């Protein structure tokens, strides 16, 4: 009888552990994955701008940089377009730079998208996807927030919302040069 009770208690414990693990996993926001790059120095890049001089990330040290990987063929990128533009308009005078990194696209298509959507922040091309690979990109859109000391503080997979982006930028600006 005692043995049967022990067996039952063991079974209940195993089931409870599995349930807790499943609940923990299901409760996580899939758009905010634990990127190995968060907390580390953002990989540097020098990329040609669509309409303007090349952009070098290292030269933007001291500013908060929002790096958004996008493509003209990506429908979800259109969803977040307004949020990125709003952030650029709102924070460019507060030491915040938004950079759009065009991913696996043609120059013509990218330029057409920028004109049609009236993108106002700098857009660069990543021919050969070297920068995308350095940032561990899995698709578009993906957004990285880099603090003033050049470290990645946030990695968002999927479209960013205006509220979340504003909150994140404010939080990085408030914490100062981390």
């Amino acid at each position, binding site marked *: 009888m005692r043995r049967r009770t022990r067996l039952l208690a063991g079974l209940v414990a195993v089931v409870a552990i599995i349930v807790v693990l499943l609940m923990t996993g299901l409760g996580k926001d899939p758009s905010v994955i634990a990127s190995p790059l968060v907390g580390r120095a953002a990989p540097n890049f020098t990329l040609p701008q669509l309409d303007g001089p090349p952009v070098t990330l290292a030269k933007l040290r001291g500013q908060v940089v929002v790096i958004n990987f996008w493509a003209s063929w990506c429908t979800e990128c259109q969803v977040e377009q307004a949020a990125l533009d709003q952030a650029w308009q709102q924070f460019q005078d507060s030491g915040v730079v938004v950079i759009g990194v065009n991913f696996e696209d043609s120059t013509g298509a990218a330029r057409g998208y920028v004109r049609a959507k009236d993108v106002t922040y700098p857009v660069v091309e990543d021919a050969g996807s070297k920068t995308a*690979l350095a940032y*561990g990109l899995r698709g578009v859109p993906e957004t990285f927030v880099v603090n003033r000391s050049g470290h990645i503080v946030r990695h968002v997979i999927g479209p960013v919302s205006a509220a979340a982006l504003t909150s994140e930028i404010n939080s990085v600006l408030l914490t100062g040069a981390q």
Partner: protein
Amino acid sequence: MNAAGTLGRARAGLPGLVVLLALAAGLVTLVIVAVDGHPPASQGQQVQQIAAGLHCPICKDLSVADSPAPLAQQMRQEIAQKLRAGESADQIRAGFVAAYGDSVLMSPPRQGVAGAVYYLPLLVLAAGLIAGFTLLRRWLRAPKADPPGAGPPQLSAAQRRAVAKAVARLREEEPG
């Protein structure tokens, strides 16, 4: 011994010498391969080997070597460029792990939490063997239970009295 004869003998022995040299070259190659473990791979083969160990980040269960996705293609080009730059296979893999995490590896690393994938089955097997051995030993040591009805018959009080009387009568009847 004239010069013509010497030259003739040398000509006659030439095919044998060629065969001997070829055999020696083959032997040396075999020794090199045996010492090195495998013949030196071309850069294309090295790219394939490294790409086969990397998981395509945008695919389901496909390696970078097998995936037709443009990103996997870029990764193969990146591997080739890094090999040309003199990076070792381990350095190239470490670069991808730094950007993508351990999930980019087709086989999880043997250390850390992921190492449980390798060691947990062995632990479970060992625990199963111990449990099986313990149960078997207990089963072998346990007294064999008699089948029902194999023991001495249970007698009632009246029957026991009758048996006792019969035994006493027999003893009385015994001579001497």
